[in-house]
Structures are given as structure tokens and as C-alpha cells.
């Protein structure tokens, strides 16, 4: 049994990747909306997002709406694959079929 992916295997980052995985492939969500859905502080969310971005699991796109900067976040293909592998590993660890 290989080790569970340490990037996802932390409560906060698992919550973030789980939430982002509910979006369709390629769709993204603005930082404040994700923060609202997760009930996390901006600082905490930013810290964990940076770890996910560094691992290539989250795509970050900075844009503007009028003069307001907006950051959109999405699970990358690599991140989605890692999340699905993580989920399969958890289920097989618990005796289910992966």
C-alpha cells in the first residue's frame, strides 16, 4: 500500500480539494466564494492554496472585474487525478474496492 498523498492528506487541504472537485473540469471559483463555502479565514485558505498550487494541484488565475482584482481557482488535471487517487486509496484502506 503506497503512502497517502501528503499534499492532500491534511484536513484543510482535503476540504479545499473536495470542494474544488465538485466543480466541472475547467470551471473555476472566485477566492471569496470558495472562502464562504469553506468557512475558512482568508489567511488560512491562502496558506493551504499556496501548498496546493506549489504541488501543481490548483490552477490560480488572476483577473480583473472592472477595477477589482479577482482570483479564480480550479483543480488542475493533475490535482483532480491526485484527488481521485487519494479517494481510491482511502476506500481501499477501509476495505472497499478502489
Amino acid at each position, binding site marked *: 500500500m503506497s503512502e*497517502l498523498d501528503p499534499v492532500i492528506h491534511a*484536513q484543510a487541504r482535503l476540504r479545499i480539494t473536495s470542494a474544488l472537485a465538485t466543480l*466541472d473540469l475547467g*470551471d*473555476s471559483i472566485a477566492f471569496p466564494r470558495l472562502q*464562504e463555502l469553506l468557512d475558512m479565514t482568508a489567511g488560512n485558505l491562502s496558506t493551504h492554496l499556496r501548498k496546493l498550487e506549489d504541488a501543481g494541484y490548483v490552477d490560480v488565475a488572476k483577473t480583473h472585474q472592472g477595477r477589482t482584482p479577482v482570483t479564480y481557482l480550479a483543480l488542475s488535471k493533475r490535482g483532480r487525478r491526485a484527488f481521485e487517487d487519494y479517494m481510491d486509496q*482511502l*476506500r481501499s484502506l477501509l476495505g472497499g474496492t478502489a
Partner: protein
Amino acid sequence: MTSASDDAPLDPAGMLELLERQQSDVHRRTAKLIPWILFAWGVTWLVGYGALWLVDGLGPAFSLPLGVAVAVFVGLMAVSVALSAVLGGLSGRGMKASKQSNFTGAVFGCTCSVAFLAIYVVGAQLSALGMPAEVANVYFPVMYTLIIGILYLVAGAIWRAVPSVVLGGLLAAVALAAGFSAYPTPYLVIAVAGGGVFLAGGLVIALWVRGRFGIPQR
């Protein structure tokens, strides 16, 4: 900015439970305005189609003037369309669709418009060919209800939403049931059963949003 508990994993069962709870929570939070859209359509169908039924449904004891019934129907439809657009926009705030998702949404939107227009054009042509008013009064409400049911089924298939599939199937069944009755009964069937499907759907989604039970998402 992170706490020890944020970084610490739970045991595998706890992590799987956290994952599933988080996804369910996101689905519930993003759907919290959906019940209001369904309630609006439920009232619109119940009162709007009910008004059309009252034109001849209780005759000769009572008859709602046709102009009043049509005004009630059209007015409520307009309110529900506007409310759906506003609440739908609020539900999707902060979300950006990919090109593929935008394409899917645009094609689905065009399909709805084409379907509604086609029913009108075919009905108008049948009327021009001599379809009696009593038959037209079965054709139009039944066909519109049927196509709305089918569109909910298609939407459920595209966006993998089980509640939409159930709603669409029930509306299609209501349309078929209404089609077996003569004017003005289809209006009553669609008002009560069709409106009832929307109201019941709104209630079920509202209870689900409040965490009373689970609904399979996909």
C-alpha cells in the same frame, strides 16, 4: 495562519467522512436558493393554469373572464422567469464556467427556445388546418408541460443532477396524464399535479439544504 488541526490528518475513515461531508456541504450551500425558484414555479403553475381552468372549469356557475385568466398566467410566468434569472445568477456568483461548460449551457438554452417555438409553430399550423379550439386547449398545455419535463430530464443528464431527473420524469407523467382528458380538465391536472410537483420538489430540496437527509447528486 494554519493551526495544528488543519495540517493534522484524521484516520482514513475520518478523512473519507470529512471529504464526503465537505462535498455534500458545498452542494447544499450552492443549492440554497433553488427551493425559492421551485416554489415560484409551483405557485405560477397552480394559480396560472388554475386561472385558465376557471374560464370554463366551473361553468356555468362561475367563469373567470379569459382576459383576466391570460393576464394572471402571463404575469406570473414573467415574475417566475425574472425571479429564476436573479436567483440563478446569485447561486452561480463567483463561479466561472469553462468554454466547454459555456457551450453546453448555450446549446441547452437554445434547445429550450427552439422547443418552445416549435410547439407554438406546430400548434398554430394545426389550428390553421382546422384544429378545434377544444383540441388546441389540450395540445398547448400538454405539449408545453411535456417539453418542460423532457428539458428537466435532459438537464439532469447533462449536469448529472438526480433531483432534476425526478422532477422532469414527474412533469412528463403529468403531461401524459393530462393529455387523456378533455378541455378544460388538462388545465386543472397541470395546475394541481404540475404545480404540486414543483412545490413538493421545492420542499424536498429545502429540507435537503437544511441537512435533514441526503440526496444522490450524481
